[in-house]
């Protein structure tokens, strides 16, 4: 890894460490203290997305048949299983860890390197985990909402998680050796696949929103909370009648 990357990484870790010391958001509560700055980065990201990522995603979805898209998606999903296995072990969930192990084994051997998802046919389904999920499991709040340049919506916990994921992902370690000391190809490939997968969703959000930034933020925080078992009870107690004037029931 080059000197620039190491320096950037150190800066990110220091900045986020300080940021995480302050007040933090939990479950469905939105904590976005740098909204003005985030909105600017969001706008910048949108420009990059419109001019580069989106055209690529459009070409891909138009030329690649759905069957092919599903194979690519399966391949990238399978490649993340070892990382998920490591996180289940850290979380102290042996059942899920073993299911993830067998899922990876079956799909890699019988699914031709993960192109086909045979494991689901044996009901070997288990959601994938990242280091951010592991931190959530140990009751760490998501910190604050941030927009990372190029990458997009995130939180301080997610940024920490991503950094740890890069170093603990067995797949990225394999690629480091293969590509002679760089994970760029692997990173670009997974990012491209993620962008393609969410192309229609992003279009829908953009076309139907009044305030794209806040809608994206709400969707992001809700999806984070939805994955966090500690937030499950909070979802049930959202008071839908709160603030509804002139109760009519």
């Amino acid at each position, binding site marked *: 890894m080059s000197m620039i990357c190491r320096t950037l990484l150190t800066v990110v870790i220091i900045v986020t460490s300080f940021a995480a010391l302050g007040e933090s958001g939990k479950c469905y509560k939105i904590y976005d203290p740098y909204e003005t700055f985030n909105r600017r980065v969001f706008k910048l990201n949108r420009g990059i997305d419109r001019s580069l990522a989106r055209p690529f995603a459009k070409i891909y979805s138009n030329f690649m048949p759905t069957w092919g898209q*599903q194979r690519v998606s399966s391949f990238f999903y399978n490649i993340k299983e070892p990382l998920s296995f490591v996180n289940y072990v850290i979380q102290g969930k042996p059942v899920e860890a073993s299911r993830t192990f067998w899922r990876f084994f079956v799909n890699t051997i019988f699914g031709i390197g993960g192109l086909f998802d045979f494991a689901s046919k044996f009901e070997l389904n288990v959601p994938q985990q990242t280091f951010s999920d592991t931190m959530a499991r140990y009751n760490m709040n998501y910190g604050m909402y941030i927009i990372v340049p190029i990458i997009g919506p995130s939180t301080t916990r997610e940024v920490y998680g991503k950094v740890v994921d890069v170093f603990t992902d067995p797949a990225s370690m394999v690629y480091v050796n293969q590509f002679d000391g760089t994970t760029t190809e692997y990173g670009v490939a997974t990012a491209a696949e993620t962008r393609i997968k969410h192309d229609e969703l992003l279009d829908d959000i953009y076309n*139907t929103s009044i*305030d794209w930034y806040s*809608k994206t933020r709400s969707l992001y925080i809700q999806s984070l909370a939805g994955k966090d078992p500690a937030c499950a009870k909070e979802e049930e107690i959202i008071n839908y009648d709160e603030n509804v004037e002139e109760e009519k*029931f």
Partner: protein
Amino acid sequence: MMKMLKKKNFRILFMMMAAVLIFTPFISLLSFAQEEGVKTFIDQVARKLIDTMKDSSSSTKTKRDKVKEILENNFDVEWMGRSAMGVNYRKLTSEQKEQYAPLYLNYLLNNYFPILMKYDNDDSYEILKIQQIDQKDYYVNLKLTTKKSENPIVIKYRVRYIKSGYKCLDMVVEGISTLTSQRAEFSSAIHQSGVDLFLKKLKSQKTE
């Protein structure tokens, strides 16, 4: 005297037990009937929407009008609109409230219709379970299997029984609530630019 009291206490206890034994089956029967009612309601709404989208003879405009009708009849749009506005609803003048109601329906339609347009004839759904949240509301869990997505999508409909029958209040797709998102979006938009500009933005949304 003590003997009399004991006898009386025993009688009360016996009557209470008898009441529990008699009414428990009725209560569970009532609860079962309510759950069945909620299930039938969601099943009917889903069927109506699918039939509308499947109809190849209808134009997009006709389909949109039909979906609008389904929304108006089966969703408590008025309540949803108020809830989406949150505390800001109280700040609206009566004129703004009048202006807001149809704009909200259009916004709702703009959000739902593009998703429904992606419906494929091979897609299927299955109602999984009914969950009572509190005295008023139910969650109906529906599993949607689509051609595009390898994994089924779980949708939770929040349903409430009101005077005019069952009404849908919210749709939670893979843990993401439509109403919570709207609340966050509307409150931020109003905070950023005020009610008038917010209404103007709602109005500028495409109607087709």
